[in-house]
């Protein structure tokens, strides 16, 4: 039953949230709204694009523009939005199934392109809406668990962080940094599913799961070090793991070029001239 009531901000609608009691997604949603407000972004200029599933229900809680897409295709939709109007603030959100299973191809190639998008992966290691089947990041599943941070680093994301839904202030700060990053910024948000995975979820512990803080001592541009942290044994890390600047995807930069009607006509006539047959 929807009971978690989120904090009211300029970004969130009034009323009950659609998630189960104790679901991390409700906290992630609140944190996202707060970070957007703190970053000075107006709902009118923001587009939040999701796939489908429990996590993607955030779209219907928002006052901003949003696309509730199809499973796995949030990133292409978002990239299209940003390319058509680079002035918009585009945030992508979705579950770990969206990111690492059905949409994994898009994640890899969006990271390579490095557009200015912020991607929040709400990682509960499961497909909650279909009753909790293990997702690719599930450490208790039949197959080897995908290391989310490792994949993001390998694919070329230029901002990689991990946060936890039960540590909201830290999560808000990391999302805020991601929103300001000039490039593809990803925050993997550990967001437990209490309905299907209580007691066996993030680290196998009952109660508040343990994490280790990455800290701010390391060189943020050292990808090999970031990989070693990502793959270290033990409880999950939280914090900013990696941040570099690389040329951004040209298509999503600059403002849309708009011509006057007469200019468009002149250009089109010139195009026709290229194919014109001049008799000789």
């Amino acid at each position, binding site marked *: 039953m929807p009971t978690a009531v989120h904090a009211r901000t300029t970004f969130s609608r009034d009323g009950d949230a659609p998630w189960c009691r104790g679901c991390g997604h409700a906290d992630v949603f609140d944190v996202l709204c707060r970070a957007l407000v703190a970053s000075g972004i107006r709902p009118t200029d923001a587009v939040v694009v999701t796939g489908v599933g429990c996590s993607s229900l955030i779209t219907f809680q928002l006052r901003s523009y949003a*696309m*509730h897409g199809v499973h796995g295709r949030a990133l292409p939709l978002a*990239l*299209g939005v940003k390319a058509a*109007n680079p002035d918009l603030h585009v945030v992508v959100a979705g579950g770990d199934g969206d990111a690492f299973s059905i949409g994994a191809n898009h994640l890899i190639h969006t990271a390579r392109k490095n557009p200015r998008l912020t991607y929040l992966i709400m990682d509960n290691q499961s497909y909650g809406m279909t009753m909790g089947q293990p997702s690719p990041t599930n450490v208790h599943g039949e197959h080897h668990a995908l290391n989310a941070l490792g994949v993001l680093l390998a694919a070329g994301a230029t901002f990689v962080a991990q946060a936890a839904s039960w540590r909201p202030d830290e999560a808000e700060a990391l999302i805020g940094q991601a929103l300001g990053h000039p490039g593809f910024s990803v925050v993997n948000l550990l967001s437990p599913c209490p309905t299907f995975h209580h007691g066996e979820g993030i680290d196998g512990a009952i109660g508040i799961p343990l994490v280790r803080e990455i800290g701010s001592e390391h060189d943020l541009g050292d990808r090999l070090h970031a990989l070693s942290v990502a793959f270290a044994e033990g409880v999950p890390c939280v914090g900013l793991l990696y941040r570099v600047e690389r040329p951004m995807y040209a298509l999503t930069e600059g403002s849309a070029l708009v011509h006057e009607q007469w200019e468009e006509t002149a250009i089109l006539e010139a195009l026709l001239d290229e194919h014109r047959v001049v008799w*000789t």
Partner: protein
Amino acid sequence: MPEDLLSSTAWPLGSRQLNQLDDSLIVRLMGVGGDGVMTAGRVLTEAAALSGLEVLSEATCSAEVRGGETMYQLRVSPSTLVTAGDRVDIVVLLDHEADLAHREDLLTGDVLLYDSVHDAVPRAHPPGVVSYPVPMTQLAEAAGAAIAKNVVALGVLAELFGFSLTNIETSLRKRLAAKGGHVVASNLAALAGGARYVKEHLVKRDSFLVPVGSARDETVLLTGNEAIGLGALMAGCRFYAHYPITPATSVADWLATHLPLLGGKICAAEDGMASLGLAIGASYAGAKAMTGTSGPGFDLMQELIGYASMAEVPVVILDVQRAGPSTGLPTKYEQADLFSAVYGAHGDVPKIVLAPGDVHDCVHVTVEAFNLAERYQLPVILLSDASLALREHTIPRPDLAAIKVVDRVPFQPDQAPYSRYRFTDSGVSPMSAPGQPGGEYVATGLEHTGSAFPSDAPGTHQAMTDKRFQKLARLEDECSPVEREGPPSAAVGLVSWGSTQGAVREAVRRFDAIGMPVAALYPKVLWPLPVKALTAFARSVGQVVVVEANRQGQFADVIAASTSIRPKRVTLYRGVPLTAWDIFGRESLTH
């Protein structure tokens, strides 16, 4: 006579000679990949166009970049052309490997021109064929351009049949300029070498000559894929996404050069799903957007086609059809994606399917595709094909002032509170774009209320489905380009869609020439089916016969499912376009 048309064995089979009764000249260039068949064909096409001739070509190649048979056939005429012809006058063989399948098309008096470097291979030309062996490879080597035997062949064609050497040179210079002066010089030497060889060594023993051209109205020379790109730009397309796939890629190639001139963007996606997702995202943000693909990519797009329909986002999806299911025959021709265009995507999906019939249509039907997508806020599928993609045609220069461009119904800020999917008489609701204050909403593929909130309440789904379909209720009255030709009443009424139109047009001309009453109808909007136009046509003819290049008779099935018409079918699916002879030369149109 009408009965004869349908079932007679007294069909005028001897009338193949009618094929010869026109003033056109048809040249077929043959080779294997890497021989430069396509380049030579395009140069010859442009040269003939520059001489004031109508030119229409047909090209096909194998899937391999090197090796595999390549064919380029062009037909030149002082008068209007609707096909590249179902006969051939002159065959040019740049490689003997390409010989076998095409020799049988040569009749008495036809010409075979070939590279005599292959003289060691025993050749059995059909009796009565005039053959001209030319040492093309040696002449190319002598000119300092060993790979330019295709250009040598152009010189031979110019000297033997009267193609303008000056115009060939103009076209060559244009194409080779970027490769440097020495490449231009050696190719021009190869051209001159071919011409000189004819003067010094050959005696003309055939009767073919290029017809005389004349100054014409303003004309442009375009491939079908270029014409689609042009139509998209004219319609206001400012975003194109694609993943490389034959035979759609050249649309992207053309747009990559031209879309940015208008402030548009072109995006290379990681797969077909991303490609349509990108276009939908761009359209949601306010740009007129399109994606282009072929069958395999089109299959991948079906889920997002349903999404665009449900979320009411305008988008144009170009499917340049190729042959066969799966990988099929990737470079070959077929019209077999109609079912997946019309019936694809799960659920009740309102969408529009259009098909251009020729290069002229590739411009204008593409404009219409955007206009319909924007007007009705739904996915519009444009079904082109491999033949249109590669063919070149001289068409009247499109008149920009006469092209009507439609934009989506905009959200007005005073409409607060904004209800994105509110019910209207037309079913079309005003659409905001991100950045507009007060227009915020969620575009969603979940069933939703007028305010875009998810709802599975009884009644909501039915009401919203009706709303989305309501948009199409007046489509045929508002826009349904249909062309009809032939006598007002006829024993047989041919119906075709897409590029089969050319073969049907030519067949209708021949039926008319022998006094047989055959009419034809060419719908451009295939779905929703133009029921009124089809029904009126069916009333004016004895028997409707649907001619199409697929096994199942897909359009015939669509017609039979939605009307009381019971069409007969002519279906061919050989991987090459239907010809006029396939229709005109049939013993019966009903078998």
